[in-house]
């Protein structure tokens, strides 16, 4: 099974990075989260309800929909803040990428640890620009809003191709497919990683790999 990989690119101002990334990551997670599973007698389960919430951006002319889960929001915000700080501290030209990877766990026999098999990876490439004056910033507000709208349409298009999705697991296997740690929603198992591109454009020499969400400690 091949891992599906999608790349989205955005150019924006420094102060817009948080909101732009939150909007795209939350849009993806909205589609990749379900309600909590409640397993009943063998072989049947029921699914909880997912609420949604509109969120306005302050620095971008844009509103996005996210899953109503403060816990999930906190996790995503933390990841985005770390990425943004790394971007600011790296001394690079403000280029980097953040990846949201959905994976499945495959149990291996002892002494080998479980495998993480990605089935969908979303990469958002960020290019931070500096603007000279307020007029340019105003134009940037609108332009980035429009760009994010296009990205949302791209995301929806990919998701609605209905390509591979992990099979619905039995009760014993649910933690291999879903992240069951949140109390109100259940996203597919995911991890967020990022890379900062140094000024030479190579991402290998200054790679910083951080695993924000990984239920398997390797």
């Amino acid at each position, binding site marked *: 099974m091949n891992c599906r990989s999608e790349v989205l690119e955005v150019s924006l101002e420094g102060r817009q990075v948080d909101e732009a990334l939150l909007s795209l990551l939350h*849009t993806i997670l*909205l*589609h990749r989260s*379900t*309600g*909590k599973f*409640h397993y*009943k007698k*063998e*072989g*049947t*389960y*029921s*699914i*909880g*309800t*997912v*609420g*949604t*919430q*509109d*969120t*306005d951006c302050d620095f971008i*002319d844009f*509103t*996005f*929909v996210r*899953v*109503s*889960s403060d816990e999930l929001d906190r996790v995503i915000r933390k990841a985005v803040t770390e990425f943004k700080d790394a971007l600011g501290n790296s001394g690079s030209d403000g280029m980097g990428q953040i990846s949201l990877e959905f994976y499945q766990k495959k149990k291996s026999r002892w002494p080998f640890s479980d495998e993480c098999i990605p089935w969908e990876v979303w990469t958002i490439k960020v290019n931070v620009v500096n603007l000279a004056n*307020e*007029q340019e910033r*105003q*134009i940037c*507000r*609108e332009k980035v*809003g429009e760009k994010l*709208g296009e990205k*949302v*349409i791209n*995301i*929806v*298009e990919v*998701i*609605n191709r*209905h390509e591979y999705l992990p099979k*619905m*697991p*039995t009760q014993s296997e649910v933690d291999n497919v879903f992240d069951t740690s949140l*109390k*109100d*929603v259940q996203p597919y198992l995911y991890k967020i990683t990022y890379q900062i591109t140094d000024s030479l454009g190579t991402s290998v020499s200054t790679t910083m790999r951080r695993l924000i969400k990984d239920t398997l400690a390797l």
Partner: protein
Amino acid sequence: MDSDLSPQDRKDLDKFIKFFALKTVQVIVQARLGEKICTRSSSSPTGSDWFTLAIKDIPEVTHEAKKALAGQLPSIGRSMCVEISLKTSEGDSMELETWCLEMNEKCEKDIKVSYTVYTRLSLLLKSLLAITRVTPAYKLSRKQGHDYVILYRIYFGDVQLSGLGDGFQTVRVGIVGTPIGTLTLSCAYRTNLALMSSRQFERTAPIMGIIIDHFVERPLGNTALMHPCNYRAPGEEEGGAYAGVEDSQEVCTTSFSTSPPSQMVVPGKEGGVPQVLLQPSHGTQADHGRLPSCPAADMPHQAPPSSCNVLSRSTEVKSASPSDAIETTFTRKVGAFVNKPTTQVTTASLDLPFAAFAPRAYDLEENDPMVHPPASPTPSSPLQGSLHSQSSSQSGGQTQEDFVMVDFKPAFSKDDLLPMDLGTFYREFQNPPQLASLSIDVSAQSMAEDLDSLPEKLAIYEKDIDEFDAFVDTLQ
């Protein structure tokens, strides 16, 4: 075609499509209410939330949707459409977008109705939630209020896109294959936002034989085909008028099976939560706060840029014929979504009748922040009309021989009681005198003095050279 589908599956599929259509309408209309929508996640399934999504049901919207469906389902050649349009307070109207739920003949025979189709419909609803915030009508709907409102209309049958103007764009939200056909959800939205004149509107043939009513305050117009999105249902909690509409309790599928298909029945009730909505509160303030700020005009105000795109378009429309703006101050040819004159002009006009024409010292500044920007709505008095014509002629770049004296009256300032007031202060601080230290004569003078005193200073420093060396040594 349906021979492979069991009766139970067929029944389930019809139910899913019916409720999907109803929820689609709810999502679209709620996204155009002008408010942020927020629903809560619940880890325990209640049986009343279709497609595992918390989407509240507005009773009137459900009623209209069911009326339009008339017991039928979207099928091949019979699409369900939700039309969103804008209506100004003057009665001009414009279609903004049309959402279509269509079915085509392409069938997916092997797909599991009870799980896969249901899950994909849920995914499609989530996509609809996301896309409804992205089309241009969303921003317009967030700003609706006194100037314009957003209306919706549901119809069934052939898709009508002619009202969207030239160059409309289409975005496909998604598709779901079923054993009886493929459901497609898409949106066609207008890109040309120049408002039609009222004459043009009357010439348009009425849609489906019913004439669209003028904008009414009352939300539940029985004969109105178009319905306001931001309605207020006075004291209507349970939807008393709709008691008959909520027919048999429909069961919402919430139980799934990981093993091969087994029983699906789950006790539960349909209904959702009847919602009483209030009119958006940001309308009035936002209007006055939003001075048009087009790139062409030199305005220090920072208006929300989302209004800029539309207004700059209307400015382009207007500046093409500035003479029209001067002469026809009472026509309805206004740019779309243009704000009414702000309180500043109103203040000026209230002080003295025709104060603008009173002979005073000539004081006309092109970059005066208090003068109105070019794109302006229909003026409601001859005074305002003349002020608009003044500013539009300026921004249009035309020089005119005769000027109209504009008495500069800043907002909220007292007039005629204190000669040295806010207005005078503004004028003075915009033309401050030059700093003394920056004037050339003074600096030249001090330079000459410095040069003369140099030899003396050098002599003193040479005398104290030992002290300086000792100081430097302490630093090392």
